[in-house]
């Protein structure tokens, strides 16, 4: 009789994923153990939801079923860091913050700064979580150069490699990024790294109207300045604060901060970012939206939000997070989505309180590629057992 090597226990309320309590929780500590779990789940026809540190389990739509919560935090090894190659291989359960401190000792960083505390690499990839410095480094898809994934039937498959430049085969890391665990369990990740910038200078500009951040961000984009982040914090229809971060060698950040103040018509400078920099807006009772638009679309996005909604926006890249009171969300979303059409905009529910989650259309219109996405899902997970219902189109 086969038994599992991995540690198992019954699920409880603290294990809930978007309000759904798993029947059982399993915590494998090796890739082979993950494969063993998934082979067994395949045999039993069980639904499986992978989770890391659970910092984003309130994100996305609720799973339609969760027989088994697959806790990846036991996959916690930094497998290989060759500083001279600016590449690191780390298992999915490694916490991003732990990886950053380890890389920092070598003067390097992984260019991802999502604010969720304790987030693991697997979770960051699967939720495609990003932060302010996406302006400088891109997002997970741009930095992930290799993956190992265990598929729904227990197959272990890698894609990419450990060199940055590599076009051999399909780049499946992109496919898994943001897939919310619906195609398989990401167990190992390989990343392109960057040198840790030695100096920082921050310019802060107070805005009487947060929408002014739109044209200011465009002006920065059109200049030759190279900020690593251009963040707006404020309220829709109210005031705001624009935070422009320069990170490079000391002489460069000093000169750029001066030039930025001139371009922006003033502002104060500091060596550190303000408290709460890059945090998602709102509290546990809010519905938090992620709105994406072309950079010039920021004012339109703000105008389409309920007045007073708290926002935090990566203004130069066109990603705006907004907190809407839970009771307003269901009515605000369709209005917002309609208004965003003009700026190629989309609005998705990033996280929602349990009470209103199921009443919301989390992902909104997906466009004419939805059927193709279904076909991809059907090939990877024909029985629809992997994080079922979490993703677009009920996938």
């Amino acid at each position: 009789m086969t038994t599992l090597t991995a540690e198992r226990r019954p699920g409880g309320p603290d294990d809930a994923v978007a309000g759904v309590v798993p029947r059982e929780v399993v915590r494998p500590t090796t890739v082979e153990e993950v494969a063993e779990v998934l082979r067994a789940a395949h045999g039993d026809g069980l639904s499986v939801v992978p989770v890391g540190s659970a910092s984003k389990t309130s994100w996305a739509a609720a799973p339609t079923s969760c027989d088994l919560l697959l806790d990846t935090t036991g996959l916690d090894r930094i497998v290989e860091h060759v500083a001279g190659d600016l590449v690191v291989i780390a298992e999915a359960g490694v916490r991003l913050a732990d990886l950053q401190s380890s890389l920092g000792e070598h003067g390097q960083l992984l260019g991802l700064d999502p604010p969720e505390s304790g987030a693991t690499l697997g979770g960051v990839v699967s939720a495609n979580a990003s932060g302010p410095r996406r302006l400088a480094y891109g997002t997970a898809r741009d930095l992930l150069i290799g993956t190992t994934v265990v598929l729904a039937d227990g197959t272990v498959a890698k894609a990419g490699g450990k060199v940055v430049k590599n076009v051999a085969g399909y780049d499946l890391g992109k496919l898994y990024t943001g897939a919310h665990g619906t195609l398989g369990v990401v167990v190992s990740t390989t990343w392109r790294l960057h040198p840790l910038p030695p100096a920082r200078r921050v310019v802060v500009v107070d805005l009487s109207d947060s929408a002014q951040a739109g044209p200011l961000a465009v002006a920065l984009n059109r200049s030759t300045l190279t900020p690593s982040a251009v963040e707006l914090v404020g309220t829709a229809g109210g005031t705001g604060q624009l935070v422009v971060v320069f990170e490079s060698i000391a002489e460069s950040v000093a000169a750029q901060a001066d030039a930025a103040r001139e371009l922006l018509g003033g502002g104060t400078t500091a060596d550190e970012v303000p408290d709460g920099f890059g945090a998602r807006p709102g509290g546990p009772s809010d519905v938090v939206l992620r709105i994406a638009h072309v950079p010039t679309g920021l004012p339109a996005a703000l105008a389409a939000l309920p007045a007073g909604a708290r926002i935090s926006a990566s203004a130069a890249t066109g990603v705006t997070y907004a907190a809407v009171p839970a009771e307003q969300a269901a009515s605000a979303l369709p209005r917002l989505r309609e208004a965003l059409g003009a700026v190629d905009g989309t609005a998705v529910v990033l996280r929602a309180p349990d009470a209103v989650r199921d009443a919301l259309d989390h992902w909104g219109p997906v466009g004419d590629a939805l059927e193709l996405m279904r076909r991809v899902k059907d090939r990877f997970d024909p029985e629809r057992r992997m994080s079922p219902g979490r993703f677009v189109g009920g996938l």
Partner: protein
Amino acid sequence: MTAVAEPGTDCPDDTSGGAPRTDRLAEQLKAAVGAERVLTDRAQLRTYECDGLANFRVTPAVVVLAESRQHVVDTVRLCAAAGVPFVARGSGTGLSGGALPSSDGVLLVLSRLRRLDPVDADNARIVVEPGVINLWVTRDATPHGLAYAPDPSSQLVCSIGGNVAENAGGAHCLKYGFTVNHVMGAEVVLPDGDVVHLGGPAPEHPGYDLLGTFIGSEGTLGVATELTLRLIRIPEAVQTMLVGYRSVEDAAATVSAIIAAGIVPAAIEMMDALAIEAAEKAVACGYPAGAVAVLVIELDGPEVEVQAQFAQVEQIATSHSAFETRIAANPAERALMWKGRKSAFAAVGRISPSYFVQDGVIPRTQLPAVLHEMTAMADAVGLRVANVFHAGDGNLHPLVLFDDAVEGQAHDAEELAGSILELCIASGGSITGEHGVGQEKRHKMAKQFTPEDLDTMQLVRCAFDPDGIANPGKVFPTPRLCGERPGPRTGQHEVQAAGLGEVF
């Protein structure tokens, strides 16, 4: 790398008897897109028998010269209905045989789809058709202070559609990334003729990142008919230096030291003595006399940053025994430094009757060891290898020189080129950094990836192209039948029957 690929062996559904089937299809195509856009004359077809990798040649059954999205849709739909394979082709400059035609299929030429929309300067976006030449994008963007970052050496002639198919890189991808990092959206005609829109001008479109999956799929997932590109701001300052060394090891050590100093140059390119010799003969680029290796190092960014880091790089080069360092004083001098590098492939024709170009990648830190080993391998079979590479990201372009007139030399050269790729894999690298797998390297895929890895990639192929008619026989070492479209499972699974069902 035999002279001619076996025609037809990779095409599924090839039992209905070739010529009459494609003759019928040609008539349907003429009715759909206009007879003047459909070539069936053997002499005309021969023009399209190869791409930039001329040692593979297959004459297609039919060529369609598409001039609109509708022509592409009509062609693909008719191919799908007839079960006839199609191969999309842009400028035909690819170096892996990715646009090699199928002998019983349609070659869909996209080079007449050449519209560029006006630049959206505030959002740094431009929408273009796939036949647009890479350099035209930067030409249109420059007046707005913008540029298109991917810059393959063939950028004067290669097309954006081809760049997307191969996920083209270029010298500056060390800092700026590859095509996949600069394409925001694509309109794609799927292999059944349906049109989908992946991504768009804005970031974060909900759903799977099928755009990222499509880019670099070498024409096996569909045909892009429109692309939304992200442009970059032209940097305030650009500085280029050419550095001469008496040993390859010193040049390689300089590269490592620059990276270790926390500097990310826009480009670091390296050429060895043979490549320098060839470039001198071809374009008289005036590289330092007696150099065994040269580096072309370019930094860009804000003026103060470039000035400070450039001085630092110069100092690093000197401390690694550089015997000559030249700094480009103006754009003309910079252009000359790059001319030697960018013309290197063609220039090798000046010193050897024939050559194979490879595109392997190794971890940067393995550079000295791999170059040493490569030289030993070449010496062992009495062949010469010229090396031109993107040293910053470990992307080697060894050029294996040979003479067809010498009995057995082509074979030895092919073997050596293959062994070099295996050396790259063994060093933790890849068989291709930017040229693609195509026809040429598909058999090497099984050395880099396990059957499970390849089967998983094929899941994507089967979702996009269940009948396997889009560029069949490329990328994968063996074709795969996709079977029925999967649906919910019925009945007991074999694993469950075996008793594992009691685990949970």
